[in-house]
Structures are given as C-alpha cells and as structure tokens.
C-alpha cells in the first residue's frame, strides 16, 4: 500500500532519518518502535506530507506521483492541538469538510466517530475543557473522519494514564479491522499488544522489521541464568570457559549465559557444578524476549 524508498531527512545537514526503506501492507497494524529521538515522529511527518524528505521517495499504491496523498491519510500528531474555542463536534465537522465531505455527511460522521471513540457526551463542550485522554480520542476521531485508507498515530498512548491507555489500545484493536494503522511508540509492550508488524528504529535507521512472530523466532536465543551463594564474579570466568557458551555477563543477581545448544550446555554446566561443588542457589532456563532485542539494538 505504501512504499518508502531510501528516504532521508536532514535538518541543517544533520540526518534525523537516514536512508530508510520499507513497505506497508494494506490491512496491517504496524508499530514503529524506537527510543526517544530515533526519528519516529520525523518519519510519520514525512509520510503524512507535513515534511518533505531531503531525498528518497514515498509512494502510495494506486496513486499518481504528485497527487495529494492527504486524501487517503489520517494523522494524529504526538501532541494534538485543537481550536480550544470550538466544541468537539464542531471541530470534527470542520475538518471533515476540509476533507471534502459535505456538511450533512460530515455532521453524520462526526456523531458516529464521537460515539466510536467514546466522547459523545462531551460533543457540545468546548475543547479547551477536555482532558488529555479526551483530546487524544478526539484526535483519533479527526484522523478517521474522512475514512482514510490508512491512519498514522504518533505516540497515541504515551501521554495517557493507565486507564486512558487501555481504552485507546482497545480502540486501536477495533480499528485494525477497518483500516491500516501505523503508529509509533517507545513502549514495547504497547507494540506487542496491538501490532501485527514491527519496524524497529534506531538513530534514524530501520534496524529490524518483520511480523511479531518472525522477529520473536529470529531473535530467540536461549539463556541460562545462574546464581551462586557467594559472589557471582568469582564464577563468571569459570562459567565462560564451558563449551557451547556464546557470551556471559553479570546482570544484577545473576550470571546470564547466552548459549547455542541448550541440551549440551545444560548437561555440561550441571556436571561441572556437581563435580566442583559450586554453591548454586539458582538455575533458570529462559528465552530472550523482544525486550532484549530492543535493548540490544538501542544500546548498540
């Protein structure tokens, strides 16, 4: 649906987004994941047409080059600002008309989406009286009003309290059925919860992408966590020398061993512990999570 090719964005010769390429498939919910300052907002702004790429191309499937992409896109900025003197409903009708809806149609859809995002009760209140969560939901409603093929949400839940977050995530879960969603977040669990695909961004580049399952599978490494009665440091060099251990490091209370072959290494480890009578207090087999992948990429 969307093809991004070699897009770079520089501010004063400083590349904020550096040569990224990816494709978005229709009907998917894609999370753009990355730490603060990774270039997520800049990427979304370029896709929505608010910024022009320094180089590279963004193409919308089935559209002529140079045509107005904005007809097919709904966008929610990170901190949406509205005309505070308007009511929620007035604002939706206004932006609906700006997206070429007739007044009647815009009014009808405004009511529908106010209901859909759960702020119908507040439709005749001035927006300046809205809470943060209500504004975020009004923001989602305005992104949807012209039934775009795709909506882009910039950090839709980051600024919300736990209840608001849960509500917006549930709403996104529902919206997945009717439109393509691209949203940015720096919180992995949000991405894991609603998205089908992940784009992992770091320092302006897309460092990893794929479906959630693919990524889980690809980066699944086995780990063994060990802990000893006395100081772990003493045992670290000895553990390191055992066969089949890729790396070993100290993590708080544990020695974490990343290994290749679980069966073989577990055997070797347990034998060693038994024969040398190491004061083992903990032995745990675990699998690396996406969070480890995230951390690995970000700390690189």
């Amino acid at each position, binding site marked *: 649906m969307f093809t991004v090719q070699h897009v770079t964005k520089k501010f004063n010769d400083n590349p904020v987004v550096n040569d990224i390429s990816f494709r978005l498939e229709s009907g998917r919910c894609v999370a753009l994941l990355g730490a603060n300052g990774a270039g997520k907002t800049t990427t979304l702004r370029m896709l929505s047409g608010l910024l022009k790429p320094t180089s590279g191309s963004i193409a919308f499937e089935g559209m002529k080059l140079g045509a*107005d992409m904005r007809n097919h*896109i709904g966008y929610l*900025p990170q*901190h*949406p600002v509205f005309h505070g003197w308007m009511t929620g409903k007035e604002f939706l009708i206004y932006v609906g*008309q*700006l997206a*070429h809806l007739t007044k009647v149609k815009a009014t009808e859809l405004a009511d529908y989406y106010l209901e859909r995002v759960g702020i119908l009760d507040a439709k005749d209140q001035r927006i300046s009286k809205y809470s943060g969560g209500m504004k975020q939901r009004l923001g989602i409603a305005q992104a949807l009003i012209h039934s775009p093929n795709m909506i882009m949400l910039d950090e839709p839940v980051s600024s919300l309290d736990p209840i608001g977050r849960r509500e917006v995530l549930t709403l996104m879960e529902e919206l997945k059925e009717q439109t393509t969603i691209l949203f940015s977040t720096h919180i992995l669990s949000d991405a894991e919860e609603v998205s089908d695909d992940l784009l992992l961004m770091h320092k302006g580049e897309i460092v990893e992408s794929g479906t959630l399952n693919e990524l889980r599978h690809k980066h699944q490494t086995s780990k063994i966590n060990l802990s000893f009665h006395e100081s772990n440091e003493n045992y670290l060099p000895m553990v390191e020398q055992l066969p089949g251990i890729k790396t070993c490091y100290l993590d708080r209370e544990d020695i974490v061993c990343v290994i290749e072959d679980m069966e073989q290494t577990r055997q070797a480890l347990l034998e060693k512990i038994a024969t040398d009578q190491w004061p083992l207090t903990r032995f745990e087999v675990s699998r690396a999570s996406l969070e480890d992948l995230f951390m690995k990429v970000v700390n690189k």
Partner: protein
Amino acid sequence: MQWRTIFRKEMLEYCRNFSWVWVPIVFIILAIMDPLTTYYMPIILEKAGGMPEGAVFEMPDITAVDAFMMSLGEYSMFGVLVIVLFTMGTIAGERKSGVVELILVKPVHYGTYISSKWAAKLTVILVSASIGLLTSWYYINLLFGELSFTLIIQAIFFYSLWFVLVVTITIFFSCLFKSPGAVFGTSIVTLLSMFAIYRVFSHKLSWFPNSLSGHIGEMLQTETIPNTLWGAGLTTIVSSLIILLIAVLIFRKKELA
C-alpha cells in the same frame, strides 16, 4: 467549498472571541476622536481652566474635509498598529500552537488556507473601519458642515485599499515566521520604511501606496477623482495580490513542523 468552510470558521471564531465587538469599537473611537476633540476644544479648555487671565485663544477654521482627514490621519497611525496587532497571529499563531498540523494534513490547498484567512481578516477590518469612518462622517455633518455621501464612500473605498496592503504585508510575514512578535516587528519596520521612502521621494512617487490618503484629500477638495488616485489605488491592489501570491508560494515550500 473548502474556502468557504475556513472563512466561515474564522467568522465564527471572531464572534466567539468578540473580535466583532472590539475591532469596530476601536475603529469608531479612532475615527471620531480627533474631529470631536477639535470641535469641543474651546469648551474643554474653558472647563479645564489653566488658561492665563485674558488670554485669547484663536481656533483655526476647520472645514469638514479637514475634519475627515483627521480621522484618516488617526487610521494611518493607530489604525495600522491595531491591524498589525490583530493580524500578526493569523498564520504564525496557528503554526506556533500546532493546530496547523491537524488542518494541513487534510487535503487543503495552501492557497485556500491562506487566502481564506486573509479574506476573513479583511472582512472584519474593512467593515469596522468603514463603520468608524461613517460614524465620523455623521458627526462631521453635524459639527463642521456638509460632506456628500458619494464622496465619503469613494474615500472609504480608496482608503480601504491601503488597509488591504497592510493586512497583506502582515499576513506575508505571518507565513514567514512562527513567532507573532517577529511578525509584528518585521511588519512595522516594513511599513515605516515605506513611509520613509515616500517622504523622501514623494514628488516622484505619486502612485506609491502611501500617497493614497494625500490623493483622497485632493479628491475631497476638488470633488473629482484625480488620476493619481486611480494610479495609487491600482499599485496598492496589485502589489497586495503579488505579495499574497508570494506568501502562498513561500508557505508551500516551508516545512510546517
């Protein structure tokens, strides 16, 4: 369609934030202040006192045309200031607050966005300025003598062109800068430079926008529209449209983030 939507939204905003109340009031005050104080000056002096005993205060004779030109004089000073203050945030304010992000991700042409806001501001300002001048005309007729209605309408028409230019210059800088303060500064500096240029070269620049009020005075005296007034009017309106066009072109290239 979109143009009307934005225009109507601006109008609604001017109702809600009481622009439709205060802008006319300011212009009425500006227009009537000078003629009224001049007329009542002898009475004011007498009541306020402070004149030395036996001093004779000779008031110059003031014609209706002079009185009307006083109103225009106030407009040229404080009127322009009010307009710049009222207009400077038109685009800059929306960009600074970030509302523009929500508007311009909808398929709105930049030309539509700017020109509709321009037209909305002009509507408020020109209507208010006209109300002010008509009020002033009413008092002038009562206090100083007859001035024909047609002449006043013509004067209002030509003087409005000057305000069109002032609004356009302010909107131009409003497209350029994000901070309303910067817009205010640059607009005022531009207008002052135009004034200075006109002062120095006035004999050669009879079609210069700043010459409008001089020509209007001439028109009121002679009761015919001088050619130079048509000329100055034309330059003013053409340069306004060109500046507006450049503003749109610059805005289109600009990154809105």
